[in-house]
């Protein structure tokens, strides 16, 4: 029996609907006029680094030892040697053929971020202004704590970040050295920034600058979803690109709001909605473990007819492999990541992840 049929059979009792009057209710979102935020010719995503940490068990042990997933991330003395970071370079080709670059996130461990930036010529792009602005997807350590590595090349870079920051987040942005106490009561370095941000800071909320989105250039929308996130973080900024003749592409840091929820939002709010693709961490089998609801996501992605799914980071290798096996068009990565000085312990030969050094074009 399908869900609809089941619900209808329940409705046949004639009790529930009369109690709620649900059938007569109309959602504001349905009534709202659809948004046209323009089009781009294409968008290319270069994976700078998707390895936020190298050993899952090490990261989980720190979470477990210091209170679990709800703990304040600034109170955990993380293992600095296990830290990497998440960053991506987005290159938008406008309808006129001009290339414009955006930086997504700034990683965690400054040594790793510096290494990755040098490998991809990011310092020069930041200094020259070729990278026009950056977006902090959310305030998680692996996306944000390496901010000094970006600011030291361009302290006045324009930055979009979630409005739902905590005091420690803003202190770091303005310049701070932060520590956490270990079990022995000693202060352990967790993050630092000696280069205060001096540029324009756009704090994003779900209202957006207009119609719920920020529209920094035609065909590019930034949308803030105010969702609670692990390690006492709130809110994530995500990218929507409207690629001409193809459709909507989402680009995310961790995609905490949920991939299908992003497409559901697009379906309700964007004019001429057509699903096309996605890139990013999809926050599913974060620690390479399983749950029946992850099978739900595979079935849901098929139902939403996403044509090009490029994923990595917190998606989980096992989800990507199961999704590919189930017929979802997962974009395969290459072995380039093996030439980097460090690799994740969970990477497999399946290349189900688009990983460090890979790229995808939508």
């Amino acid at each position, binding site marked *: *029996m*399908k*869900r609809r*049929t*089941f*619900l209808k059979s*329940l*409705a046949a*009792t004639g*009790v*529930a609907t009369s*109690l*709620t009057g*649900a059938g007569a*209710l109309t*959602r504001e979102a349905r009534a709202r006029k659809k948004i046209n935020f323009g089009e781009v010719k294409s968008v290319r995503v270069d994976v700078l680094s998707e390895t936020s940490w190298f050993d899952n068990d090490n990261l*989980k*042990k720190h979470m*477990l030892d*210091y*209170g*679990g*997933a*709800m*703990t*304040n991330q600034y*109170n955990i003395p993380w293992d600095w040697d296990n830290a990497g970071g998440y960053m991506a370079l987005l290159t938008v080709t406008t309808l006129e053929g001009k290339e414009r670059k955006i930086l997504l996130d700034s990683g965690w461990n400054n040594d790793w971020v510096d290494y990755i930036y040098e490998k991809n010529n990011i310092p020069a792009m930041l200094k020259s202004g070729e990278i026009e602005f950056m977006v902090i997807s959310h305030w998680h350590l692996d996306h944000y704590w390496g901010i000094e590595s970006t600011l030291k090349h361009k302290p006045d870079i324009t930055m979009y970040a979630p409005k739902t920051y905590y005091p420690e987040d803003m202190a770091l942005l303005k310049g701070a050295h932060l520590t956490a106490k270990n079990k022995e009561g000693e202060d352990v370095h967790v993050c630092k920034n000696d280069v205060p941000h001096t540029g324009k800071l756009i704090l994003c909320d779900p209202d957006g600058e207009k119609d719920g989105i920020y529209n920094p250039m035609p065909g590019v929308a930034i949308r803030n979803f*105010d*969702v*609670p*996130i*692990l390690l*006492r*973080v*709130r809110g994530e900024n995500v990218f929507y690109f409207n690629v001409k003749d193809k459709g909507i592409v989402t680009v995310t840091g961790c995609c*905490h*709001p*949920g*991939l*299908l*929820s992003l497409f*559901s939002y697009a379906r*309700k709010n964007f004019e001429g909605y057509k699903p096309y693709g996605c890139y990013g961490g999809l*926050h599913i089998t974060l*620690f*390479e*473990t*399983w*749950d*029946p*609801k992850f*099978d*739900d*996501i*595979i*079935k*849901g992605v098929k*139902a*939403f007819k996403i044509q090009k799914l490029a994923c990595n980071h917190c998606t989980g290798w*096992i989800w990507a492999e199961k999704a590919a096996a189930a017929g979802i068009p997962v974009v395969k990565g290459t072995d380039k990541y093996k030439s980097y000085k460090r690799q994740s312990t969970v990477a497999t030969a399946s290349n189900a992840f688009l990983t460090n050094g890979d790229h995808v074009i939508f």
Partner: protein
Amino acid sequence: MNTTAQTGQKFNYFFGLINLVAVFCIVWLLWYVFMNPNTVMKLYTPMYGFSLVVGFLAAIVLLNNVAGGYPFPEVSTQRFGPVQRGIAMTVVAVLLMLFLVYIFFWGFIGKFGIAYFSPQSIIASGGQGAEIFNARENASTAIVYYFTAFLLVALFWSTGFDRWPWQNDDRGVTAWSRLFAVTFFSSIIYILLFHPHVCYLFYPAQDKAGVESWWADFAGTGSAFFGLGLVLCVLFWIVASDLLWDGYPWKYLEKEGESTWAKGVVVFIVTFVLGVIVLFVLMQIMNYFWDEAFMGGQYTDGPDFRFIHAGEICGFFILAAFILKHYFNNFPNLNSLWVGAAIRTILAMAGGMLFYWFYYSPLATFFLAKVPGVAQPGDTSLVWTILFLSVIMVQTDFFEGWPLKKR
């Protein structure tokens, strides 16, 4: 639970309110010590803390509702007053909780029978994700589900069958017989509603041990949150009829003041149907606020979240029903039982919504160190609700309401 008729004495609602505030503070202190992620024990991971809290509630229900207080005196006596009785039963409930979680499930069933009940056995089996954090969460998930099935059957039995068919036997026989009957039916409920989910918590799935969730197509999710939500919706009606309706209309099916087979069957069928209806209504209300959920949706879009959220809401209703009964003397006490029962039910739902508002407000961030917002992965209000309920039950059942009610 206690369905004893009201004494008719004037009830001091102000003292009731003071008692409620005191209980709230005790719950806050317990949360601060054991659950708060920034303080001492940090057990709210969340499933590990959840398993201990629901284990404690199950121990209370086992002692009080299943065993009928046996082997303790049924009520306090001159020599064994409510305080002594309360302390003794609370200590036994804590020890029973520790025994059930750490010895029965982790050390016995998980070690010699079903591996997923023990973190150590999961780790020993090796493979993907077999490390302590995940193993403990998965074992705790299975334990939470078993205790949930136990609570459903135990509270249903207490309201429906009560002492039937052992009404002519002594307390010891009744206690042991009910324990075996409740455990048997709890196991059946667990196998049907929760075991398939737990078997699919692993990669690869344990598909020779458990079938793929049979409800996935019509529920829109393979998660056992479907069953959890349904069980809690049913439990609300069991609790409401027992506490707020003074055991009616089921009492009409009693014979000479004792439960009958027919009473048990009717309670089961009617509360199940009412539970399905309230689940459906709550799902419709959520559809109104968040649009229809879809398979694979996350946060408020996920059918799995909608089901557990329906259960969480019913958890708040149950909590409010207990408070209305024990701290506000089941207000209002009218001549018409049914008008009074209807008003109490509405008050319990309204009170439940007050708790809902509290839990998702910045106040909960202050008191419980919770991240603001709905549908936080790894957060369920059930842990706080069950802790609150446990403290209320300890006071009202073990301490016989002391110090609010004095014999």
